[in-house]
C-alpha cells in the first residue's frame, strides 16, 4: 500500500454563470486591474491508500464523479501523486 495525494480542482462548467467570479472581476476592475474573466472553483485534497497509482487514480475519479463534483453544473480535474 502506498499513500497517494489526490488533488481535485472542481469548477463550474463553461457557460454556467459564476456570481462569485463576476463579483471578484468587478473588484479587480475597481482596483485598476485589466482582467477579463474570473472563475472561482474549489481545490480538494484527499489522501488515498492504494496498491498502485492506477488504482488510486480510479478511486479518485469515482469520488469526483459520485460526490465531489456535480455533473449537472461542474467539471473536475484530479491529479494523483505518491506522497
Amino acid at each position: 500500500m502506498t499513500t497517494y495525494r489526490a488533488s481535485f480542482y472542481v469548477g463550474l462548467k463553461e457557460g454556467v454563470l459564476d456570481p462569485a467570479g463576476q463579483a471578484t472581476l468587478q473588484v479587480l476592475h475597481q482596483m485598476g486591474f485589466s482582467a477579463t474573466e474570473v472563475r472561482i472553483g474549489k481545490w480538494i485534497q484527499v489522501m488515498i491508500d492504494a496498491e498502485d497509482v492506477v488504482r488510486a487514480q480510479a478511486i479518485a475519479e469515482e469520488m469526483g464523479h459520485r460526490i465531489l463534483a456535480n455533473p449537472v453544473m461542474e467539471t473536475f480535474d484530479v491529479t494523483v501523486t505518491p506522497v
Partner: protein
Amino acid sequence: MTRSMDAQREVGIVVFPGSNCDQDTIKAVRELGATPRVLDYRLTELPPLDRLILPGGFSYGDYLRSGALAAAAPIMDAVDEAALLGMPVLGICNGFQILCERGLLPGALLPNPHGTFISQLETVRVTAVPSGFSGLAVGDHLALPIAHHEGSYRIAEGQLHALFEQGQVFLQYSDPDGAVHALTNPNGSVANIAGIASGSVVGLMPHPERAMAEYLGSADGRRFLQAWFGQKGSPGC
C-alpha cells in the same frame, strides 16, 4: 379528519445536521391532521410511513455544495427505496437541493446570480399538477415565501424541453396574477422554475410550511400541503 387523511397520517420528517425548518414542518403536518415522525439521518431503515418530507435548512453547513453531503447520508438509500415504491416524497428548499443532489429529481440548484440571500414572498404558478395532488389546477397561483442563497435552478443542456413535455416543471415564479416572465424571476432559475416533480417525488424552493395562515402573510402553503396530502381543502380550514 377524513378517511383518506387517516390512510395518509404517518409522515416521516428527515432531520440532518443543520436542518432548521423541521419544527415548522412538524407543526404544519400536525395542523393538517397527520402525525409527524422525526427520522434521524443515520437510520438505515424507515419505520412504517405513508409519506416523507425532507425539510429546509443548511444541512452539513452547505459544505461542498448545498445538499451534496446530506444526499450521501445513511438514510438516503431507504429514501430511494421508498420513492421507488411510489411513496410521496416532498423536498422543501434544502430538501429540494438534497433530492437533486441524490438524483431523485433532475437538475441542480446554483447560487443566486446576484450573489445575495433572498427572503421574500413570491407568487408561483402551477404549471402541471404532480401525481397524487388534489385541489390544485394548472394556472392556479400561490403566494409562498422563499429564503435561499442557492435557488437558481439549472438543468443539463438540452433537457429543459423534456422537463416541460413530461410535466415535471410544476411550479414557476410568476407575477401576482400568475403570468410568468423574466421580471418575475427572483433567482435566475432557468424558465422561472420553482418546483420539479418526478413520479411521487416533488421538490420546491418556496416554503409552504411558513405560509400556514393569513397572519403569516399567506395561507397558500396550507393549501399546497393539503393538495400534496391529496386533500381537497376547504376555505378557511
